[in-house]
């Protein structure tokens, strides 16, 4: 059983990473916008849970509010910031970086720099044979699988997804068919941010919630996209598994620093040997 626990922990980390990377990728794939503040949106999702907990609201209400509030914030960000720099993709990195600094500091000012803890709503363990695992973590994994599946369904099977993929492939042509590309950009951005907010809220009880937590997910998220390849959505699954799995397992088996360095070297080797990512595909 020494092997099973780290493997399941790794799986749960991978699923969260994929959720974050999907949000990043939707925004990057559609608009060419790199959202450096994505990690902070994830963080704010977790802080919504902090507020809900201290306000005595039920856990499920928090889970509902987090994507709503973060999605709304995403809408504001799109309207006030991103919209003005769609055509300057490199500047979006800098502008969202500025945003990330501001959001982080905003949280420090309101909640202080120290880490907060969220009580898990369910304390039971799930036991199979002599192996037991917290039920809440299991539920989070299930929820993540559903959300990932839902996102794939949205982009691959629905009319919204058809339009979104058309805009990714040929934005001008899609527009000449009457498709409102700006509107689609906006909705995709909001979907990506709401996803990050919900992910933050879901994992909040299982991690330490602090103002610096965003970056710890942003970078592996980006490395996942880089390793998996930015073309098809499935690349995120492969990249997220490689980065998240290696990171999580090596942290347990060797040390956090060694894990980070190893993941990093892996990413650099992939860049060098397979610049289009493991799955290849269009950038």
């Amino acid at each position, binding site marked *: 059983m020494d092997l099973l626990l780290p493997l399941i922990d790794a799986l749960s980390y991978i699923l969260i990473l994929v959720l974050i990377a999907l949000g990043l990728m939707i925004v990057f794939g559609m608009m060419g916008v790199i959202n450096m503040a994505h990690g902070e949106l994830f963080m704010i999702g977790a802080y919504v849970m902090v507020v809900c907990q201290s306000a005595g609201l039920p856990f499920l209400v928090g889970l509902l509010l987090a994507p709503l509030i973060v999605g709304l914030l995403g809408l504001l960000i799109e309207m006030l910031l991103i919209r003005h720099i769609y055509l300057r993709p490199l500047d979006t990195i800098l502008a969202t970086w500025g945003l990330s600094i501001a959001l982080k500091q905003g949280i420090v000012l309101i909640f202080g720099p120290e880490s907060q803890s969220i009580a898990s709503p369910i304390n039971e363990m799930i036991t199979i044979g002599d192996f037991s695992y917290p039920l809440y973590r299991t539920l989070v994994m299930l929820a993540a699988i559903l959300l990932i599946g839902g996102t794939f369904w949205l982009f691959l099977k629905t009319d919204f997804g058809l339009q979104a993929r058309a805009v990714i492939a040929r934005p001008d042509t899609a*527009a000449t068919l009457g498709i409102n*590309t700006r509107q689609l950009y906006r909705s995709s951005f909001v979907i990506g941010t709401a996803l990050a907010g919900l992910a933050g809220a879901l994992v909040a009880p299982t991690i330490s919630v602090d103002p610096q937590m965003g970056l710890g997910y942003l970078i592996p998220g980006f490395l996942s996209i880089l390793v998996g390849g930015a073309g098809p959505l499935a690349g995120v699954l492969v990249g997220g598994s490689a980065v998240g799995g290696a990171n999580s397992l090596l942290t347990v088996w060797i040390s956090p620093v060694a894990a980070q360095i190893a993941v990093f070297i892996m990413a650099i080797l992939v860049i060098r040997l397979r610049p289009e990512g493991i799955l290849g595909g269009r950038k």
Partner: protein
Amino acid sequence: MLELDSITSGYGDARVIQDFSCTAEAGRITALMGRNGMGKTTLLKTVMGLLPITSGQILLDSAPLERLNPHERSRQGLGYVPQGREVFENFTVAENLRLAALGSSLDHLDMLPQIYDWFPILKERLDQKAGTFSGGQQQILAIARALITRPKILLLDEPTEGIQPSIVRDISLQLSRIAKETGLTILLVEQNVDMVKTMADDIAFIENGKMMEKCLLEDLGPDDALLHRYLSI
């Protein structure tokens, strides 16, 4: 009726289209001819809103379009078949057609039987990816896609480019038939004389971004003098 009134546009500081005026009469097929690099594609892109207009007016049935976004112009009734066809290669035929309906109105899917009647090949290959099609088949798909949006006027940018002559003829005949049946107005940008002679009612000539002359097909002159002058044939 589409009226272009002293349009100027281009890329950055380069003015490709200068003070261009032209009218495509309702229910007629107008062909705009000119050599390569004379600004034909630039003009259509400007009409669609893909390129910013510096000055001038674009009127569709007297409604000004020049301040609208491309998707709004499409909804006002401009149907566009771009140069190079630009179908969505990774989408099936059915998805390509559905996409066009999504851009305008899903009710337009009612037109599908009509479309299949005009272009039976699309019905046969509904689930095939557009990327596997030949140039001519992609062209048919691009035209069908534009027709689904129920345009008042169809803008065709060099539909014959890179397509076999026999298929060019089929497409021209089919388009004339559709125009006659439905009263669709067409503005065709083309260098292919055969296609123009098969389809067009009116012919306009563009040179260096300027409107030079416009005449009826019958008035091309003895031995196609105008064609010789503006196309150096």
